[in-house]
């Protein structure tokens, strides 16, 4: 029982990270119908930038750890958001009128570019987040001792998801994002500046992804330049699982995938962990071809 509970919580923490990254995929897909394959690498950049700011930037030394981490958390979000926004301008906007797959190839190119840029800057060896930054307290819950890091990751992802939900549902800008996702042409006619909304989405999505990168660094302690492929693929899977383009779907898909994977790793076989995620995906899509929360749009004939 103890093991099950711990794995469940571990799954929720990892799932929350998947969900944050998945949100970037799903929001971009929502407005552009594009799979931003470079998103996973923006996440990597977040992890590396976080490390740089904390260690080389000296923030970890001059401020109390909690404050330093919190500050860096938002700085990373902002920096990666700017990179994401620039990426859209350079690599995707010129291809908006071309076939959808042309933009996908451009995204794949961007992914390779970013991954190798990180490798050139930081080198190919993995980096380690300093242990001193990781909270070492534990929380008692139902008689189980929960590692503080796990709890904090879950808290951070839940907070970010709630903030995003509030932004999308309660603000005018959020309404504009939803409008562009439904019908770009109609949104333009209603006076919405579609390009600005797309840029906004490319700020929010990569921003969340970058923060997720920092969380992974803190959670596992180790980062390497290829991690974007794995996490990106998993998060993309999560986004599809929930129904691509659907924001609650991405959150649900991410959490579900994290939990399934954690349980599979401990109860099935660790080596098959990655395969389990895809098997679940295939099974769910056979039953529900548009994902769990994806709308079944009847074809207009």
């Amino acid at each position, binding site marked *: 029982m103890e093991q099950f509970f711990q794995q469940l919580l571990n799954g929720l923490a990892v799932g929350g990270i998947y969900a944050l990254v998945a949100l970037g995929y799903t929001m971009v*897909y929502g407005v552009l119908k594009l799979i931003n394959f470079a998103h996973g690498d923006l996440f990597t950049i977040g992890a590396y930038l976080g490390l740089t700011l904390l260690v080389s930037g000296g923030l970890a030394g001059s401020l109390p750890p909690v404050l330093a981490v919190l500050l860096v958390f938002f700085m990373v979000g902002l920096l990666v958001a700017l990179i994401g926004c620039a990426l859209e301008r350079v690599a995707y906007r010129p291809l908006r009128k071309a*076939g959808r797959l*042309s933009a996908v*190839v451009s995204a794949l*190119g961007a992914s390779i570019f970013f991954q190798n840029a990180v490798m050139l800057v930081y080198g190919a060896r993995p980096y380690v987040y300093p242990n001193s930054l990781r909270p070492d307290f534990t929380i008692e819950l139902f008689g189980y001792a929960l590692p503080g890091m796990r709890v904090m990751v879950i808290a951070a992802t839940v907070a970010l998801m709630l903030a995003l939900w509030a932004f999308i549902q309660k603000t005018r800008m959020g309404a504009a994002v939803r409008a562009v996702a439904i019908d770009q042409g109609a949104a333009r006619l209603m006076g919405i500046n579609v390009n600005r909304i797309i840029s906004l989405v490319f700020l929010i999505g990569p921003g969340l992804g970058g923060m997720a990168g920092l969380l992974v660094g803190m959670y596992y302690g180790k980062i390497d330049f290829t991690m974007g492929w794995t996490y990106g693929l998993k998060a993309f899977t999560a986004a599809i699982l929930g129904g691509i383009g659907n924001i609650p779907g991405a959150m649900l898909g991410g959490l579900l995938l994290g939990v399934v994977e954690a349980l599979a790793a401990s109860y099935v076989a660790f080596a098959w962990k990655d395969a389990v995620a895809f*098997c679940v995906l*295939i099974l769910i899509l056979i039953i529900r071809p*548009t994902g769990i929360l994806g709308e079944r749009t009847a074809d207009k004939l």
Partner: protein
Amino acid sequence: MSDLSLSGRRGSLAACLLRGRGLGGLLLLGVVVALPFFCNAYWLDVCVSIGLYALLALSLNLILGQAGIFHMGHAAFFGVGAYTTAILNTMFHIPVLWLMPVSGAVAALFALIVARPIIHLRGDYLLIVTIGIVEIVRIALLNDVGGITGGSNGIFGISRPQLFGFRIYKSLHFYWLVWGMVGLTLLLFYGLWHSRVGRALNYIKADDVAAEGCGINVAFYKLTAFVLGAFWAGMAGTVYAAKMSTIAPESFNFMESVIIFAVVILSGGSQLGVLISAFLFIGLPELLREFSDARMLIFGLAMMLMMIWRPQGLLPCLPRRYGRLRALMASADTAKEHHA
């Protein structure tokens, strides 16, 4: 056979030449024939590699370019073919070239089984599922399923192929084998393109609901395109296994799929486009060797720039030609009068 070649129909070869395509094709043929005389062993190997990717991309073009099925998992079928060859050859010592159709068939069967329940999925859903298949296959190979795939070390000691008693082992031999296969593939797939089947795939790509409404069995054609493409990838796997004589799971990962996918998209959909695109994608990283570490960075950048430069791809398919339609009408009229 002459009817299958670039012309297809009287008069259209001239039209092709005028449009510059036929000239491009001839030029490419010249390059392929001349290359072995100018290349050293290293570049010859690169050219074998280009030929292999051309084979893979031509078969993916059927699925992705012609039928518009978002398939990013072609490396899985390539891998299944290569492993089938490797396992049967090392365990039962069956000659490699005999295994080519067998490997193709195994890959095709595998494609049939996995694609059957998922082929109706829409665009991006299918894309991630096909990526998932690559990952599942790779992980299965790594975990040494059934104790026959050799885990992460893979399989070594695959024997060299023999063709009518002639042992194929030098790079030059493989060069001719691979490019011979490419040539044959071009002819066969050109025939397919200019036929009822090729058109059906294009209708499905353009609008699957309308295609079904016109009497085209959409599910059947999607599935068979998938299976035929997998068959070809499986055969390419045999050649790869024979060439390398050692294979490992990492040769069939997601990145391989991505490159084959990108070759097809950049090509624009025509066969000549696929060949040029394969040269660019496989040749370019080799040309960039001197940049060593930065070479993949430049490669990624080039991928973006090429798509921005030509969003529709290098060479989109030209319209099919159906001969002199006016003359056809006239003969039809006389036939009608005759009938009356």
